[in-house]
């Protein structure tokens, strides 16, 4: 509960600027998904379609109302159509995109290198991205210590099902050797 309550205050702050186009992204996604979903159930017996059709059509109806409402607001020139609301400034936007790409790389590396090594690499670059190159010493210290701590707590002590790779197997082998 807390999470979305605090969110609310965050969002209401942002509502001050009256750009509406970003607000349409979620309904659009929902609309596309709902239509796609409905196309996948055409073969099903109707009682298996019923709930999706009911919920789906209510959702579509709500989205249409929302679009209509937005349209009339724009016509009354109460709101401006633009995307600026979503992106507060350019550098953070670029940073955010790079962070997303780094995140995807992290996922790819996880399969190959295992948790510890990919975490070190990701944390190092992500911290530098969010601060600056000058900060590389701190970035190195934090990425090394946090990843190793993560390895120690989650893998070594708790044996959690973390992705394993070169490093994890190496340690395991050393242990077996003894």
């Amino acid at each position, binding site marked *: *509960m*807390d*999470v*979305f*309550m*605090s*969110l*609310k205050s*965050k*969002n*209401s702050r*942002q509502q001050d600027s009256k750009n509406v186009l*970003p*607000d349409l*992204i*979620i309904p659009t*996604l*929902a609309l596309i*998904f*709902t239509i796609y*979903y409905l196309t*996948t*159930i055409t073969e*099903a*017996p*109707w*009682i*298996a379609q*019923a*709930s*999706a059709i009911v*919920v789906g059509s*209510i*959702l579509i109806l*709500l989205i249409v109302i*929302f679009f209509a*409402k937005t349209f009339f607001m724009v016509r009354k020139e109460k709101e401006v159509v633009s995307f600026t609301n*979503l992106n*507060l400034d350019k550098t*953070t936007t670029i940073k955010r995109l790079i*962070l997303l790409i780094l*995140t*995807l790389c*992290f*996922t790819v590396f*996880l399969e190959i290198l295992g*948790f510890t090594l990919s975490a070190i690499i*990701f*944390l190092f670059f992500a*911290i530098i991205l*969010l601060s600056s190159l000058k*900060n590389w010493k701190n970035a190195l210290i934090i990425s090394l210590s*946090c990843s190793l701590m*993560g390895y120690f707590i*989650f893998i070594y002590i*708790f044996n*959690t*099902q*973390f*992705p394993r790779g070169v490093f994890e197997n190496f340690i395991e082998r050393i242990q077996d050797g003894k």
Partner: protein
Amino acid sequence: MENDLEIFFSLINNTLEYWWVIIPATILGIVVGAIPGFSAANTIIVLLPLTLSMGPEAGMIFMVAIYTSSRLGAGIPAVLVNIPGTAGAAATPLDGYPMSKRGEGQKALSISFTSSVLGGLLTTILALILIPWLSQVAYYLHSVEMIVIMLFGISLIATISSQDTLKGLIAGLFGLMIGYIGADVVYEIPRGTFGFLELYDKVPLVPALVGLFAISEAFVVIDRKMVTIQSQEKNIVHSWQQTFNGIKITLIRWKHVIWTSILGLIIGVIPGAGAAIASFVAYQQSKNFSKTPELYGTGHPEGLIAPESSNNGVTSGTLIPLLIIGVPGGATAAIMAVVLEYHGVQFGPDIFETNPMLGYGPFVAMGITYIILGFLIMPLTRYFSNVLLIPTKYIAPLIIVFTLVGSFVPRAYVFDIYVAIVFGIIGYIARKTGYHVAAILIGVILGPMLENFFLRALRISQGDLTTLFSSSLGNTLWILLIISLFVPSLKKYFSKQK
């Protein structure tokens, strides 16, 4: 009755065996509660890999202890620096902050903690007593009633949590549709799976949760430089006298604690209406009934007791619908649902008979946490003035690393990490444009349940849709649902008329 007591004591014993979980979780909860924007829900998600590896009992106790103690932690910055640690403490600064401005910060903290502990403890015990009766209700609920309850839950969460009802409903129903992904239970036809075998068995909940809450949070948080609390050292006068004074002030007003906490308990049971609403309602009601309403807002003890004891009443209330019918009362309960579901725990009234440790255990753990908190937090009131600074450049990448791996843990599919990233993007856009991630998540959780009940009802009636309106209990719920949907807009309409 004697037998019940026996079970009760064995439950306490059993829970105490998990002291190694409760104590660290309690301390952690206080700390994270005190960091604005870093709620219990977030913490539980970051520590998900740990929670999942612990086994259902320890995991549940861990989550409950963090949840409970973060409530108290959230009062600290609210009282000292006028920033509520979580939304549940939003009404706390109204009278808490003026008090600490007067140099009575420690007294204010002491009042806040005492009323929290007493209110929380009282409602927890009350919940324990009521649950055997409440759970019987679930045996009278057939699929038709369950359908309405699900819809009720989703619409309440959507309308109460959002300032824009329409947006809230869109988010909730979008969640439901996402929850419909997978093969249906009767004919096993895959629907909406984009051809992925990994989605046949519904959308995996842990990745959905991680994406919607944690990944999106990490991307939002980098707008800010710091997640901080600034301390104003001068407001604190260190003395034990203030602490004891605060305890005394609260104890004298025991009636106040009792009724505001029970109010919190009731509000907590309603899906969607959480601590923030409870604390404001309690504050308002306490002011209405007060003999000295003019003192509210100037540092009046009752103005601090009301929100604190009621928001702690919510804590146990929100677990009740989750355990009895599997409908989470709010975001934190939704996260608990995800973890328990991973462990194969199935909710329902018989959980209290077949697995009392999981049914009653959370409440017992909550009570114990409150008792520990009572002893732990009072002495600590002296040290809470220190500055807490966490630069986002470190916290955001750390959140990403540990929660993404957490989404891998349950099924060990790398596919699930990509699911988390997709939900992260959806969650980020949703947060930025005023849609509630919690509404989406609860939709994703309720979707499959709703669909199962729907299919079941239709199958039993052999395809007759009117079965949805065939029971009197169900029809009563339908009427309530419709009223609840239209009240907000009617209210808006009438307030405009004025």
